[in-house]
């Protein structure tokens, strides 16, 4: 797989040389690949927000480099500006950033900042709305009339409309009901497949990241103690607990089953995997 973003020795210090000096990230190295879904897990305040805001050039590294497709994103002014369109970042509770009179205009804000022509803007707005699960008649309405879930979709569409190669979402399902959350996650997956995009998903739900991510990154106190497949990362159950994280429910259940003397591999993270493992074990019996 091709690397798309490389983080090299990234350190970020807030308010340096003051009594409030705080090392948010400490010599972080990470490579993110083209087309993968990367899950980021970590407690509030672990440094993960600082990390993702480095990826699209919102925050400047205190030291270290961020390479996008091999180029340092801070090497030229133009690159720093255009990187925001290549790496789309959807903040937590993005519905609070809506401001236009209509949904259409709001989604068009990003593409318009890219100085695209009207025809292209129109194409992108409609495409993004479809990806985000918004129906056409919504486009002419005011975003402020919509329900919370719909607003969230408009905000996500606003970033998707820039057609970023890397789409970062910070807690995209926070506060939504289970059906709404599942549908938004499915929409994001559709976008990833259609555009061969990289998706970076910050989530508190171990079950969600276990199901969706190819690789997981754990952020704790400004460092990345574990990076790897869900299987590799969740094998450090106790260490994760000490960082205020957990393992997925199925993993907990299977570990208990194993502790009860049943010979079964506890490395199971989703309901589907669990079901398959049980049926498999029964067949072997």
């Amino acid at each position, binding site marked *: 797989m091709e690397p798309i973003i490389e983080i090299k020795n990234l350190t970020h210090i807030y308010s340096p040389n003051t009594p409030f000096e705080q090392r948010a990230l400490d010599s972080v190295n990470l490579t993110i690949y083209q087309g993968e879904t990367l899950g980021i897990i970590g407690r509030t305040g672990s440094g993960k927000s600082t990390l993702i805001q480095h990826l699209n050039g919102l925050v400047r590294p205190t030291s270290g480099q961020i390479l996008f497709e091999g180029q340092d994103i801070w090497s030229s002014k133009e690159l720093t500006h255009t990187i925001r369109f290549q790496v789309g970042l959807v903040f937590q509770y993005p519905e609070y950033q809506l*401001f*236009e*009179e209509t949904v259409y205009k709001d989604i068009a804000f990003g593409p318009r900042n890219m100085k695209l022509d009207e025809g292209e803007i129109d194409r992108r707005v409609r495409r993004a709305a479809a990806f985000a699960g918004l129906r056409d008649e919504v486009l002419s309405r*005011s975003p*402020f*009339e919509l329900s919370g879930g719909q607003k969230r979709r408009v905000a996500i569409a606003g970033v998707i409309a820039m057609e970023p190669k890397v789409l970062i979402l910070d807690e995209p399902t926070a506060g939504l009901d289970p059906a709404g959350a599942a549908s938004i996650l499915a929409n994001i997956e559709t976008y990833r497949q259609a555009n061969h995009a990289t998706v970076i998903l910050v989530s508190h739900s171990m079950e969600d990241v276990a199901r969706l991510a190819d690789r997981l990154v754990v952020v704790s106190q400004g460092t990345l103690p574990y990076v790897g497949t869900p299987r590799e990362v969740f094998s450090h159950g106790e260490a994760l607990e000490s960082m205020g994280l957990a393992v997925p429910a199925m993993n907990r259940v299977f570990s208990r089953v194993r502790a009860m003397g049943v010979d079964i591999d506890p490395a199971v993270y989703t309901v589907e995997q669990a079901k398959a493992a049980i049926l498999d074990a029964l067949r072997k019996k």
Partner: protein
Amino acid sequence: MTTKTAAQRGTAVSVKSLAITAICLVLVYVFTAVVNIRLPFAPNGGLIHLGNVPLFVAAILFGKRTGMIAGGIGMALFDLLSGWTLWAPFTLVIVGCMGFVVGAVTEKKKSFPFYLLALLLACAIKIGGYYLAEAVIYQNWVVPLTSIPGNLIQVGAAAIITLVVIEPLRLAACHTILRK
């Protein structure tokens, strides 16, 4: 839907308008203290604060009382907390007047000419007010002239931004807070 309760009990201010005024006050403070724009032409480094924008917006959307309190106290609070303590009482009165006048002028008619009139009056109050205030502080009628250009740019830029923002904001607010 909830504010009736306080009104029924005869409180001077309903809880909701109290909260809104308080938050507008914070906005005035925050915009004065942190939200700055860099101007192409630059007298003192070219940074001007936008504290007058929330003041105007509060007065236009929520009326003279909110405009007066939020503006006057918000900006006086800034003076108080950032070393312009001596100016605070004057700011309280001058900016309070600005908020009151803007709110009073736009109370009945919400349209561009009225906004413009209100904002021009506010500019006049600001410049005249601070001229008099500094004349008292410095006991001199010439020195305060030096701060007129700065005040003019400050309040003028805020007026322009308010005129650009106010209609979209009012429409958006109609869907949320102004609905009730």
